[in-house]
């Protein structure tokens, strides 16, 4: 488990800009990395066991674990650190589905969508402290900064930004102002780094919706109900930059990838 032998396996969809970012950061740090796209298939063949598994999927992280074949578990190091995107599932819930529940560390990396290198991590109730330190060390090694935060649904930035996007979508739906004016107002009136609607387009409206649904499941409060404009846009496949259209339209040359 020594750091200089890390071998990383990323579970995720290569169409997701976050997956590419994780891979690029690993490659830039000379960390060997493989992408694992389809869990129905065997994992990429490997000679050295994976020491870090990164599950980037926002939607129901355990869906992927359930489908992991025995061969993937054989490909993992005994000490493998399991980093899981916890925007839509609490790390403790994810860990509860695993035999090795002590190696799970949740993360939220929505900053990656806008070029920010700071990642939030949260330990599950079952997590052994040594894995929290390993997560911080690993992030640092690939040029990212980890900040440990309490295990709350959506963690901090994802939760607050999802609620800002939802509120801005609510104002848009009600005709309070144009999308441009809503974003301009938040940038110039309160110094936000970007307008909430444009931010939602960066993150992906499906990711925002999954975060809100998770919050609502955990708390059972109307407060977290996604406004119908948001759910309709996700249904229509208008997810933001990655599909070329969200609250705003994106010409191909301005797309991230």
């Amino acid at each position, binding site marked *: 488990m020594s750091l200089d032998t890390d071998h990383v396996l990323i579970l995720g969809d290569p169409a997701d800009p976050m997956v590419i970012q994780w891979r690029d950061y690993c490659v830039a740090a000379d960390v060997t990395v493989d992408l694992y796209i389809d869990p129905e298939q065997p994992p990429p063949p490997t000679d050295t066991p994976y020491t870090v598994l990164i599950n980037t999927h926002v939607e129901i992280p355990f869906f992927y674990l359930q489908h992991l074949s025995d061969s993937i578990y054989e490909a993992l190091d005994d000490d493998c650190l399991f980093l899981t995107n916890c925007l839509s599932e609490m790390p403790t819930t994810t860990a509860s589905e695993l035999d090795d529940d002590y190696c799970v560390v949740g993360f939220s990396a*929505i*900053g990656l969508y*806008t070029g*920010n290198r*700071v*990642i*939030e991590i949260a330990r599950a109730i079952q997590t052994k402290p040594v894995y929290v330190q390993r997560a911080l060390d690993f992030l640092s090694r690939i040029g990212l*900064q980890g*900040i*440990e*935060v*309490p295990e*709350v649904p959506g*963690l*901090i*930035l994802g*939760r*607050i*930004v999802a*609620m*800002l996007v*939802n*509120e*801005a979508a*609510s*104002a848009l739906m*009600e*005709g*309070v*102002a*144009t999308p441009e*004016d*809503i974003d*301009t*107002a*938040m940038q*110039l*009136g*309160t*110094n*936000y*780094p*970007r307008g*909430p609607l444009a931010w939602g387009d960066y993150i992906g409206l499906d990711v925002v919706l999954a975060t809100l649904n998770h919050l609502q499941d955990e708390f059972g*409060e*109307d*407060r977290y109900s996604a406004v119908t404009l948001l759910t309709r846009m996700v249904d229509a496949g208008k997810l933001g930059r990655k599909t070329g259209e969200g609250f705003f339209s994106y010409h191909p040359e301005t797309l991230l990838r």
Partner: protein
Amino acid sequence: MNPSFNTIGILGSGTMGAGIAQISAQNGASVVLYDIEQRFLDTATARIRESLQKAVEKGKLPAEDLEPTCARISYSTRLEDLQDCDLIIEAVPEDMALKKRIFGELDGICKPETILASNTSSLSITALGGATQRPQQVAGLHFFNPVPLMRLVEVIRGQRTSEETVQALQQFAKALGKTPVIAQDTPGFIVNRVARPFYGEALKILGENAGSPEVIRTIDTVMREAGGFRMGPFELMDLIGIDVNYAVTQSVWNAYFQCSRYRPHPIQRKMVEAGLLGKKSQEGFYKYE
């Protein structure tokens, strides 16, 4: 309709009123600044001069423009002195009864073509229009503090505000070097509504973690460093004033008939009850020297 607004009347000489008077005068308008007592006006006079002096020092205002700018502002405690103004901007305390009374009086005093605008951050523009016989010429013109620095102006269209009035105010804001946005008359308009979760969710996360000071620091750090916000929610609440932020939250929450998205948090109330209001009281979520 005169979009150039040669003479502007401003009611209320506090931070906002004085700031609006200053930038209007800087842009060549004649300003009549009204308040109920001369001592308030004396304070405003000094404050405006000081602010202009700073603008000169920073090279934002030619030194020779200082005196003429000050001279363009006259001060009055008589509402009748506003009768010749093309545009009135009301910036008195956020009290609906007070504002309605003032709008009714102005309606009787001012020329028929005068536009009556309010700098309210949360009260109904439609209700103010309803206090006059000229609701089509009543609109919101919401500046942000500090007025000389903040570029945004929300132009608020009340239920009966005319398109001409909205356009004239938009042009006026642009002439002041501001960026206007247009919002319908809904609680909190754009900024004070859409910003609610920034504070509300941060407070709720804090409440879910035993109100620990460490969590306050963590949330602020994440929002600054991972989110790119200039200040974290608790730092910002301390700057705005926890009491002020709590009042805005309650106002938006009540205006939406207690919709749970806008619900205030008991932590806010407790801080206000304890007199821990933020920077202005030397202690809020953080301690200040």
